[in-house]
């Protein structure tokens, strides 16, 4: 592993992204548009908007980073560039951390734009510090990115990669406590919800929404998100094989 090679890889991925202006525009504009929609849907119920918009701030970047990385990594696999990279002195971790770093930058930009709009223009109100919201959102986006890297190993085509989005992301959104509070779910549903990392992201965001100071529950949840991202990255590393049949 080498810091120089990891940084060069991250810079390369960001350069690829920069050449794709439309994707950059979509990354930045789509979450803000969706939040604006929410704002006017709940025009008469500001408290509901606060609750849902806060959760959605976590969900949008998670989803988009998942999609972006799974497709980007799949391209790397199918175009032969991954196999070529693995014949060079680059370490597997350099590749994964390069991706992680590049998409974390993209996620941070996206989170910054979406949060700024939500807090300043749409009147999103949290009891806790908006900066904490930002930290959780970026952490969650990195988790989405890591999961995307991992599942790209199981897709043979971009069609399949895109299908992993509803398969991996939607159950997490449904069971994260947004639609039905987790404690009201039947036992087995709650058990599934307990092992899905998004539940902890939503819980952490809700903690910031309700408490002025950072709670220990929020820190624990953030730690779980980071740990899940690290595990997903390690699983991703295991799918990178220098020798193939």
């Amino acid at each position, binding site marked *: 592993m080498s810091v120089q090679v990891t940084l060069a890889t991250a810079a*390369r991925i960001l350069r690829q992204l920069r050449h794709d202006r439309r994707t950059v525009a979509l990354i930045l504009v789509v979450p803000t548009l969706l939040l604006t929609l929410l704002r006017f849907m709940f025009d008469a119920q500001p408290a509901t908007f606060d609750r849902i918009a806060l959760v959605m701030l976590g969900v949008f970047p998670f989803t988009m980073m998942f999609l972006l990385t799974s497709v980007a990594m799949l391209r790397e696999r199918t*175009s032969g560039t991954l196999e070529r990279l693995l014949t060079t002195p680059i370490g597997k971790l350099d590749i994964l951390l390069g991706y992680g770093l590049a998409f974390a930058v993209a996620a941070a930009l996206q989170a910054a734009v979406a949060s700024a709009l939500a807090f300043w223009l749409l009147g999103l109100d949290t009891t806790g510090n908006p900066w904490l919201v930002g930290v959780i959102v970026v952490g969650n986006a990195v988790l989405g990115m890591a999961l995307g890297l991992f599942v790209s190993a199981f897709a043979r085509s971009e069609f399949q990669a895109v299908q992993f989005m509803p398969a991996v992301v939607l159950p997490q959104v449904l069971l994260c406590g947004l639609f039905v509070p987790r404690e009201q779910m039947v036992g087995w549903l709650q058990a599934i919800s307990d092992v899905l990392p998004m539940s902890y992201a939503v819980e952490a965001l809700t903690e910031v929404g309700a408490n002025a100071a950072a709670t220990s529950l929020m820190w624990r949840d953030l730690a779980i998100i980071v740990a899940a991202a690290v595990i997903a990255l390690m699983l991703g590393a295991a799918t990178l094989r220098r020798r193939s049949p």
Partner: protein
Amino acid sequence: MDTAIEVHGLVVDRGGRPVLHGLDFAVRRGSVTGLLGPNGSGKTTLMRCVVGVQKVRAGTVTVLGEPAGAPALRQRVGYVTQAPSVYADLTVRENARYFAALYRLPRSAGDEAVRDVGLSDVAGQLVTALSGGERARASLACALLSRPELLVLDEPTVGQDPVVRQDLWRRFHALAESGTTLLVSSHVLDEAGRCDRLLLIRDGRLVADDTPDAVRRAAGASDLETAFLRIVQGEPRGPQTREAV
């Protein structure tokens, strides 16, 4: 030690069927060796074995004194796949500079390689915008820049016009003179005549391992094309190849 590649009893299965059936040969350092054979005869699989990305069932492949695929070889071996494996959404220059960074070389090493393959005029263009031949040269540039001791080139001249082809072959020989070993697969028989030595494989078996002249003589043909067809179609050969092998 003047052997660059040494292969003993190499057996490879792909997709459940044997592709290479026990190959034995050696390649001298500082030589240009042509790898010829009909489509599907196992040329690419053999090259993948030399680079160390192919799972092998039996036999040994020793490259520059180390087992093929050894981490130390990644600095010393360059591989250009048949399909150009460079990033289509980066410019030629950005590609070359990224690969230079992987070998911890300065950007100038990348720029120089772009110049060496005659792509200076399109260095600032995205690879998607290039012709097939230019893409192949961009891919070649990314392998040349680390000045590897062994270059494995899978059909490097496909899609190149005669002028570029001649220029590439001149470059290959210049590299060989400076001590680089080249293993080059090709379909173009007049190119085979430019190699110091030829390896002919058919159905995963080595059917000739000799100089172009000896191959011609052994097949009793005046040109390599006829010799190739005779050998590949399994017509009786003269006794010379046996002795030479």
